[in-house]
């Protein structure tokens, strides 16, 4: 079965290939705020943006409907729906803030209400792919502008003046000529009777009148709750009569339970029951792995009970998965021709005739997400109805999957979205919620399934493992005339369809076939690789190994030609132009190419900006080095300079990081900074420590002691972020993910500058120790 042949099964990054008829309810309900205004909704809203995005092609598209997203109570409190999941990007604040801005609502009188999973009502809710602001900046502005217009019309009628004479200002509508005013609350009931203006006729605010957007002065709505322990994450849901469960799952992906002895567990104080959990044969998308659940009065008892279980497993087809052997397989595959996925000129001939060929083979192992909150979900299944509380990036997908798994209608499933204690792509996959649903159905009681950290490390949907092999052919002047890049890695599609050996378009489009350099002869190839574990998307996905390889190769070319890294990079990017790669079905993060082309002028600008602000070429102390990298991902452009210090024992520290980002039109620069600061830490984590290995089909690591992440004492001392002011019509682009990819190669280039050592296999581990 082929991935592309079976798009209907898929959600996530691959959604661009799922184009379905969007059906909408003709009657849309309001928010249920008593006495609130209910706006008559446009039944169908087409995009009427200055730019086109791929939002409409996502499952269930976009709903531009003030009645769905906004309610005004008679006391003036404005409730705005947040329909995307909050996992730390600030989206639960940013999207409602856009509505409030256009509405002229006073943010201190706005209440944010989290949407449950209902994509027919709210439009697509999949919070991944760095898409929320990109897809919803304009729809949220339109929703806010619609609500404002209706409030203005209501006030004008009451005063008997033309609507053109009134204006919403800071939670009131004022009549300038007479100085009369009505608060939003006073107008709520009348505004409800107004017809909803057409999107085409809406007057959006002039950006110079913005109070909130682009200013970065508003803290996230959950700030006080987070600092006082009141914020509600998935793990914090408590229901009357709720049981606590942990599950022993097959240690090898695709394995099965042979037998189990519950006696030891049942003797543990607090343990109430031991039961089998249904598993699905691998690959099964996000369906549970199966195993044995221990049900107890608290999580601690359930964990202790699980430790006392006797379990016999059949390891199944992946029982021999071995990371050392698999790496050799990938390396060998990378040295032979593979499926050609981009071809311009004749790279084979050009490499043969080149004056010099530089070869780099770059290895990046599996990575685990390890969000601070391990997977957890609460389910309460009664008869043919199910209610779920879970930290999911995919509220709509979770609802679909729970319904399918339990065999009940989707409208009988309520998915309550809690805060997410980190996501990074892991929580797009709702296996943990499905486990809770299955257990609750069987127990006839609400149940919380808590994954331990060991469960999380052992049963993640891992970042792939890859070898990226690049051969660059140089002429006698040192100009790159040929580029052959082979990318070998098991695909995310393997989690959906057995027998997948090639990467999907959305993976190839992340730094392989969209490579922006101006080179006459290009060949991008994708040799086969089969998966032996669950592969999933991890923050920035295939961009991590691709940027690592491509930008490290730039450093290698700079060294081979005796040129400066930055100058080499600019020479490779070449002239300012729109790149048009010769690729069948080029994946552009789901966006129309006209709105979001590969623009080398913007790419060059990031290199130049970060070089200027980050003082490229500055004198650094002995043992220090500077490295630079640039990468376009999630249709944003981002460049990073890392200063590294390596002492004589090979101990690495990072005194300074400078990053420039062009993410187009933006909402909250303060949250962009925080995302980029965090991306540097995540980039450093994966570069220094990130490696998940398999032996005999089992993950060898367990917890934060052997799958390490960066701690404060080794985090960069200074991280500077420069956000480019957008052009007037520059569409918004991604922020959550693009910060990660350029970090590792910038660090590798810096390490080379500091030590003369070129690291081509991550993690760095002990490679710098003499």
């Amino acid at each position: 079965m082929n991935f592309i042949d079976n798009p209907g099964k898929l959600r996530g990054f691959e959604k661009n290939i799922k184009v379905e008829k969007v059906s909408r309810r003709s009657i849309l309900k309001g928010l249920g705020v008593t006495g609130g205004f209910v706006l008559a909704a446009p039944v169908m809203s087409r995009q009427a943006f200055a730019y086109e995005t791929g939002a409409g092609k996502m499952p269930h598209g976009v709903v531009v409907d003030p009645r769905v997203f906004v309610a005004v109570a008679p006391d003036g409190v404005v409730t705005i729906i947040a329909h995307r999941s909050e996992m730390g990007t600030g989206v639960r604040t940013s999207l409602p803030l856009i509505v409030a801005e256009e509405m002229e609502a006073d943010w201190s009188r706005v209440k944010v209400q989290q949407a449950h999973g209902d994509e027919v009502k709210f439009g697509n809710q999949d919070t991944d792919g760095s898409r929320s602001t990109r897809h919803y900046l304009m729809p949220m502005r339109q929703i806010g502008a619609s609500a404002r217009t209706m409030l203005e019309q209501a006030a004008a009628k009451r005063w008997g003046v033309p609507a053109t004479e009134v204006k919403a200002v800071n939670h009131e509508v004022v009549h300038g000529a007479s100085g009369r005013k009505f608060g939003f609350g006073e107008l709520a009931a009348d505004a409800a009777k107004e017809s909803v203006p057409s999107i085409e006729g809406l007057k959006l605010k002039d950006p110079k009148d913005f109070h909130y957007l682009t200013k970065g002065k508003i803290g996230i709505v959950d700030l006080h709750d987070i600092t006082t322990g009141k914020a509600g994450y998935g793990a914090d849901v408590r229901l009357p009569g709720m049981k606590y469960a942990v599950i022993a799952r097959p240690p090898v992906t695709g394995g099965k339970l042979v037998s189990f002895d519950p006696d030891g567990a049942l003797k543990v104080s607090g343990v109430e029951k031991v039961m089998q959990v249904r598993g699905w044969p691998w690959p099964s998308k996000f369906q549970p792995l199966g195993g044995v659940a221990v049900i107890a009065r608290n999580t601690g008892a359930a964990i202790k009970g699980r430790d006392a279980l006797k379990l016999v497993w059949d390891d199944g087809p992946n029982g021999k998965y071995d990371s050392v052997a698999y790496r050799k397989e990938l390396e060998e595959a990378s040295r032979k021709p593979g499926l050609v996925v981009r071809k311009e000129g004749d790279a084979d001939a050009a490499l043969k005739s080149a004056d010099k060929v530089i070869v780099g083979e770059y290895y990046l192992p599996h990575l685990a997400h390890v969000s601070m909150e391990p997977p957890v979900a609460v389910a309460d299944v009664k008869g043919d109805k199910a209610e779920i509380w879970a930290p999911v990036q995919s509220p709509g997908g979770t609802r679909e999957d729970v319904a399918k798994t339990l065999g009940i209608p989707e409208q009988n499933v309520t998915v309550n979205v809690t805060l997410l204690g980190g996501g990074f792509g892991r929580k797009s996959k709702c296996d943990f919620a499905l486990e809770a649903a299955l257990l609750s159905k069987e127990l006839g009681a609400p149940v919380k399934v808590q994954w331990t950290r060991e469960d999380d490390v052992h049963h993640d949907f891992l970042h792939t493992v890859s070898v990226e092999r690049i051969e660059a052919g140089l002429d006698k002047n040192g100009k790159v005339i040929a580029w052959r890049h082979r990318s070998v890695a098991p695909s995310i599609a393997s989690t959906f369809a057995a027998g997948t050996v090639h990467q999907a378009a959305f993976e190839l489009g992340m730094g392989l076939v969209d490579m922006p350099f101006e080179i006459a002869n290009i060949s991008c190839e994708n040799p086969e690789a089969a998966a032996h574990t669950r592969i999933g998307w991890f923050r920035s996905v295939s961009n991590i190994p691709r940027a690592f390889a491509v930008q490290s190769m730039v450093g290698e070319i700079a060294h081979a030609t005796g040129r400066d890294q930055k100058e080499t990079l600019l020479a490779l990017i070449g002239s300012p132009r729109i790149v048009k790669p010769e690729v069948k079905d080029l994946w552009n993060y789901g966006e129309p190419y006209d709105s979001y082309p590969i623009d080398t002028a913007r790419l060059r600008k990031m290199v130049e900006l970060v070089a200027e602000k980050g003082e490229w070429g500055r004198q650094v102390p002995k043992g220090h080095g500077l490295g630079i990298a640039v990468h376009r991902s999630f249709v944003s452009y981002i460049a990073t300079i890392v200063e590294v210090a390596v002492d004589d024992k090979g101990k690495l520290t990072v005194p300074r990081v400078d990053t420039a980002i062009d993410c187009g039109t933006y909402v909250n620069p303060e949250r962009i900074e925080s995302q980029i600061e965090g991306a540097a830490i995540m980039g450093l984590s994966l570069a220094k420590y990130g490696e998940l290995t398999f032996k005999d089909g089992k993950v060898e690591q367990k917890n934060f002691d052997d799958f390490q992440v960066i701690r404060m004492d080794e985090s960069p001392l200074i991280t500077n972020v420069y956000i480019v002011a957008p052009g007037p019509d520059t569409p918004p682009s991604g922020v959550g993910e693009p910060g990660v990819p350029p970090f590792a190669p910038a660090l590798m280039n810096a390490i080379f500058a500091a030590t003369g050592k070129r690291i081509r296999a991550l993690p760095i581990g002990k490679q710098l120790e003499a």
Partner: protein
Amino acid sequence: MIKVKINGQEQSWDGDPDLPLLWFLRDEAGLTGTKFGCGQALCGACTVIVDKEAVRSCITSVNDVAGREITTIEGLHPTGDHPVQKAWRQVNVPQCGFCQAGQIMQAAALLMDNPKPSHEQIREAMSGNICRCGCYQRIENAVHLASTGV
């Protein structure tokens, strides 16, 4: 029957004395502000203050703290205005926020012991607390701000 004082209130437990304090707090006492991150004292998400010391509640049993005074994030300050909490908000520290209760408790314990820590001391004292979102620069700045007056 084990008796402990949590945020000034007497609580008792007659179940497994080896139950980790973390699960007693979260599942039995309903104080969910203290988080589970690793269960092995590796990440600090479960940090609470026992008497005046920061303790990882995931590897501390209820029996270990019998008769002692435990402060969780919920009890750090009646209105949430402990200098560390205020500094956290002023610096906009959190991203996902899940580790922050543990970070705040660790920082509060640090300042009880050392009211004016240097940046080096802050980095050392806070290094047992992992933040996967990577808010370290802001955490460091917030602890510094809390120590110099918010």
